[in-house]
């Protein structure tokens, strides 16, 4: 525990280096050729070459969209897994992305411009968060099982709404709806408030890291060690939900980041939440950036939805992790 061993710092250092490397690769890769030298002069001099334009107007926004979204999802995932005490929990399990998607799709179906999709998604996500919170909270008692069931059921409800919307839409619009549903960064632009959500969410989660270490031991054990479990859980639910809603607003529902990243880090030895929380954000961001580089290069000049690539990498990664954890027991 951040005390006797050097392992935490090794992990933190290694992942930071990896993250920087990933950013450089992402900035240097794409359909237009930009060498490392050109990248350097574009970043340092802001000359008005084509390379500089590509870097500043296309690659930097997209790379940072991937980094921020991945960070949000990694963080939301680790929080959701502690909150629900369920290894299969991911940021979307309680219906946040369902609400966002239904709302965004309804907007597209109604013929509004795609420029309004992020706003519609955010409103839908917040609506879903409040519905689940209200239903799970009815009667004052707020058990994890009840929250999980309510969330999963509401999520299934959104799924039905999404299907209705998809089947009653003309083929042209369906194409862009599907991209959004699978999660895609090609249209993403980061706004300042989204970075602020990530930073404040990260800080808040770090401050809750010690109580989280107690909470994973179970409700009663945590209560007996002085944790106000109810208040902590409500905070966790709201934090994870807002982080997820923000991520969905940027990029649609990109899967697997929030599920796989915390598990991978636990297997690498980061079990203490004081370490696991910052690392999840860091590795989530790196992972999604890599996935996005692949999404825009593998079938270039065509682009894949980023969410498809995370699934293609994430599914085998998760299965391998699952196998190795089963061997441990």
């Amino acid at each position, binding site marked *: 525990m951040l005390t006797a061993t050097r392992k935490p710092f090794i992990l933190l250092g290694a992942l930071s280096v990896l993250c920087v490397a990933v950013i450089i690769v992402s900035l240097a890769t794409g359909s237009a050729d930009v060498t490392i030298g050109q990248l350097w002069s574009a970043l340092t001099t802001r000359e008005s070459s084509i390379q500089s334009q590509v870097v500043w107007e296309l690659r930097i926004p997209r790379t940072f969209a991937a980094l921020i979204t991945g960070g949000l999802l990694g963080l939301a995932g680790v929080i959701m897994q502690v909150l629900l005490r369920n290894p299969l929990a991911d940021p979307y399990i309680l219906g946040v992305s369902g609400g966002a998607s239904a709302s965004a799709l309804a907007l597209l179906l109604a013929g509004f411009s795609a420029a309004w999709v992020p706003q519609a998604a955010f409103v839908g996500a917040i609506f879903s968060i409040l519905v689940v919170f209200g239903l799970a909270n009815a009667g004052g008692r707020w058990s994890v099982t009840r929250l999980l069931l309510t969330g999963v059921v509401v999520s299934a409800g959104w799924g039905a709404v999404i299907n209705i919307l998809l089947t009653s839409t003309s083929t042209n619009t369906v194409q862009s709806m599907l991209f959004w549903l699978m999660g895609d960064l090609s249209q993403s632009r980061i706004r300042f408030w989204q970075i602020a959500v990530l930073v404040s969410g990260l800080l808040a989660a770090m401050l809750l890291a010690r109580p989280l270490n107690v909470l*994973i031991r179970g409700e009663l054990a945590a209560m007996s060690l002085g944790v106000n479990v109810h208040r902590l859980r409500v905070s966790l639910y709201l934090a994870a939900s807002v982080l997820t809603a923000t991520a969905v607003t940027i990029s649609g529902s990109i899967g697997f980041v929030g599920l796989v990243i915390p598990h991978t880090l636990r297997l690498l030895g980061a079990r203490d939440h004081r370490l696991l929380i910052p690392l999840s954000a860091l590795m989530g961001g790196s992972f999604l950036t890599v996935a996005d580089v692949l999404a825009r290069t593998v079938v270039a000049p065509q682009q894949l939805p980023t969410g498809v690539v995370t699934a293609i990498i994430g599914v085998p990664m998760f299965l391998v992790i699952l196998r190795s954890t089963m061997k441990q027991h």
Partner: protein
Amino acid sequence: MVVLELERLEVRIGGKLICRDLDLQLTEGEVLGILGRNGVGKTTLLHSCMDFFPPASGNVRIHGANLQSLKRQQLARKIGLLFQESDSSLSATVLETVLLGRHPYSENIFWDSEEDIELCRITLALLGMDKLENRQVSTLSGGEKQRLAIALLLAQDPAVFLLDEPSNHLDIDFQIKVLDLITQRAKQNKAATVMASHDINLVSRFCDRVLLLLGDGEFLSGSTSSILNSNNLNRAFQCKIAQTQISGRNYFLPE
């Protein structure tokens, strides 16, 4: 001075009555044993003293303060519970686990203090576990896990020790050593101890007073010598229990 006080306490779980009109005061250093058949409500009674759920009626007070008036953190500094079973599937090292006992006191929101780490190492040594501090908890034996849970409780340093089956998984020598350790620590720190156990002989050896739960809310309460006899035990356990003496100590055995 009274440490733990139960006042006209009525506890129910799932409609089942555990006790009614239970009055009890424990002073500094006193040890109370709770005995009774499986399912009679020993654990539930301990849990109601932790304010895990509110009592049907009556009060639990600690140092004169009603449980419900205390915040969780204050409560955790006053009462500590040794759980009957602890979840050991989580991956954490032995030292990390004992350090959780210092959580109610942590002033730094992020780091563990050097004093706490030192105190936890000393506590582990008391239980013969100082060489295991970097071991994963999941690799420990049942008895080692139980000693670890006791180390955590000692590190928590409460004014009331609640012990739910403290001898679980322990070898016979450690059963005695561990209870000696806890009751001595309790006397030093002017703490009270409540132990729920199915082992009549351990209760007879370590407890000043006994609460014998008979089922349907009935109970017998009094000094150990007045409660522990064949008659009362026959009634509580519904089997014939004989009493014998070995070197001045009372022992109880099924006939």
